[in-house]
């Protein structure tokens, strides 16, 4: 069977499964809709969190991105996993003990202020929309590349599916579909990686394969008999140097920038509302801890495989294209040329493809080959000559990754509107049933807006992803942390801290991304910290402001201090009276 047929079959089966789950797990109360009635087993919550977390970008683009960055790419790997250690120890269990439904609600209650609740809900909506825009586009892109339909048709199919299970099932429906989506996406990611690792190194674990020696079979695939017996990474480093790049295992970026980006991504992760609310769905505090552990384990399966894929794919790609006559180019190259992800321009007129440093369409460089980062995952199975069903899996996996993340984000938006805005501020005495309708309506409207972003992608989407992490890092992370670990932090402190954090990060990023993009390089950054890493500084400013302002303003009322105390202990104990 052809790749196209396999893709249709595997995607069809997975979609049918998602729809079945959505009908079986539909929400009846607002408790169901916002927090799946707090009945999700930790291992399931771990899978759902994993699917929630791993987006279209993680699945399709990350390995390719790393293959161009070499060791510097590790800020994505560490940054997007390290936050879970913080979640498990600093946030998850205590938010579960609090037990309500949304992050703006926690912020409003802890800092006894509707103003903070509204500020938080605006932040949550902004961060989630920034993120979701890319997901719907991702759905369309996967559809168009694997199934020969237009991007817009793909976006609309994706919208219809998410609309169906998000409005029907709420958190409950989303959680159980995400469990299925996790299984689909992780299989789709690991199976090709295992095959490729076996081919090149004979090691079934790609994580170890990337540090192993190349077998005779692998050397034959690379058309380089001399590679046999050499370490994979040494061969890649050699290729990189021959072509004028720096060695793969060496870093280029200043270490201070890598440090700040990694920190910003870690604390940004721990401050993202769609991840935080997952901890409301488990039965007990200890389940919140262990579900963070499961989540990280499931995420690390993909994140430790990604650098291996990038090593294998980059080696394989260069070896099978560089210095090869175009007429003799492998069939996958010509197939993917149609999508514009790879391309060739014969600058020196010799009919042979040459890879070198620089842009392929810049006549001044010797590089003749265009390599889009996404090709490393999308075409990898074909490049490694794997069976067609493996290639078909990639499509189903990419869709699962994009859809699951989109659904989790849409739920945050819908809950912010129905629970934090309508129920809490605008119409406090509405019934549970009415609130449920607002929640479903909110989810529906949010899906449509996200779909529009997918069909008419605003050019700035890629630019503003730094915003999502920077804002989460500078606003939610410090306020939630102090909210749990310091009884004396008060609403004035939180207000000033949040405002300073948000304004600082927003101005720094806007300046370098929109106002003066030509200055966006390390000579102009403050202390060499790029806009991607500035969230760390924003968070630090937020902490300092909170501490100082809280010192000089009245401390929080006794019942708030008791609430904070009660978050720290499991069980249904009455809050201990404060000891002065």
């Amino acid at each position, binding site marked *: 069977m052809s790749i196209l047929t396999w893709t249709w079959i595997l995607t069809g089966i997975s979609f049918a499964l998602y729809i079945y789950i959505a009908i079986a797990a539909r929400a009846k109360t607002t408790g169901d809709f916002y927090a799946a009635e707090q009945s999700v087993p930790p291992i399931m919550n771990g899978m759902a969190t994993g699917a929630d977390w791993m987006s279209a970008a993680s699945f399709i683009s990350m390995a390719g991105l790393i293959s161009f960055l070499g060791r510097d790419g590790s800020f994505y790997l560490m940054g997007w996993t390290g936050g879970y250690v913080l979640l498990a*120890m600093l946030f998850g269990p205590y938010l579960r003990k609090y037990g309500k439904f949304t992050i703006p609600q926690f912020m409003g209650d802890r800092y006894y202020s509707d103003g903070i609740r509204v500020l938080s809900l605006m932040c949550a909506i902004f961060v989630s929309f920034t993120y979701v825009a890319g997901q719907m586009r991702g759905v369309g892109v996967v559809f168009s590349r694997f199934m020969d339909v237009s991007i817009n048709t793909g976006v609309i199919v994706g919208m219809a599916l998410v609309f169906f299970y998000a409005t029907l099932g709420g958190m409950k429906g989303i959680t159980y579909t995400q469990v299925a989506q996790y299984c689909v996406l992780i299989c789709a990611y690991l199976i090709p990686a295992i095959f490729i690792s076996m081919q090149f190194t004979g090691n079934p674990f790609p994580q*170890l394969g990337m540090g192993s*020696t190349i077998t005779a079979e692998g050397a034959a695939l690379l058309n380089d008999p001399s590679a046999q017996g050499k370490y994979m990474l040494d061969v890649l480093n050699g290729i990189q140097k021959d072509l004028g790049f720096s060695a793969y295992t060496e870093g280029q970026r200043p270490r201070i920038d890598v*440090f700040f980006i*990694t920190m910003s991504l870690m604390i940004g992760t721990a401050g993202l509302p769609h991840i935080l609310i997952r901890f409301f769905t488990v039965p007990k505090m*200890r389940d919140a801890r262990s579900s963070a552990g499961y989540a990280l384990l499931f995420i690390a399966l993909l994140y430790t495989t990604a650098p291996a894929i990038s090593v294998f794919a980059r080696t394989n790609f260069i070896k099978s294209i560089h210095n090869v006559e175009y007429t003799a180019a492998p069939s996958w190259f010509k197939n993917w040329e149609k999508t514009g992800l790879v391309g060739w321009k014969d600058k020196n007129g010799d009919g042979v493809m040459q890879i070198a440093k620089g842009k392929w369409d810049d006549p001044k460089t010797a590089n003749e080959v265009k390599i889009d980062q996404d090709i490393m995952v999308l075409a990898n199975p074909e490049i490694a000559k794997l069976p067609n069903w493996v290639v078909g899996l990639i499509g189903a996996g990419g869709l699962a990754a994009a859809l699951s993340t989109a659904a989790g984000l849409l739920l945050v938006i819908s809950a912010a509107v129905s629970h934090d805005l309508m129920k809490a501020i605008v119409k406090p005495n509405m019934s549970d049933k009415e609130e449920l309708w607002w929640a479903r309506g909110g989810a529906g409207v949010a899906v449509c807006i996200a779909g529009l972003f997918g069909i008419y992608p605003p050019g700035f989407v890629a630019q503003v992803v730094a915003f999502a992490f920077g804002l989460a890092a500078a606003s939610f992370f410090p306020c939630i942390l102090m909210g749990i670990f310091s009884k004396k932090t008060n609403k004035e402190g939180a207000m000033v801290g949040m405002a300073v954090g948000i304004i600082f990060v927003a101005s720094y990023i806007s300046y370098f991304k929109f106002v003066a993009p030509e200055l966006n390089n390390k000579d102009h950054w403050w202390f060499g910290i790029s806009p991607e890493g500035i969230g760390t500084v924003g968070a630090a400013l937020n902490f300092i402001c909170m501490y100082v302002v809280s010192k000089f303003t009245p401390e929080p009322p006794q019942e708030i201090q008791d609430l904070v105390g009660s978050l*720290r202990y499991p069980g249904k104990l009455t809050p201990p009276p404060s000891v002065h």
Partner: protein
Amino acid sequence: MSVHATKELEAYWKENLVIIAVHLAIWFFVSFFCGIMIVDQLDAYTIGGFPVGFWFANQGSMVTFVILITTYVTMMNRLDKKYDVHEG
């Protein structure tokens, strides 16, 4: 709730904070210290085909993160029992 129970709970919270501090120190050590700050120095050594610093940045830190959460969960479950605050 008696004064004694309050003291017990404060001791529980203190022990929790110590456990968190130790785990965060290891978290910082494997990622920020080994994976970023002294990565070039560590790269002078290799394990199998991996330069050591590169391995921490690409694999080791993530593996350690998983182990860290596992030990935190285990230690906290034990602490919950010790102070008799465990649920169900």
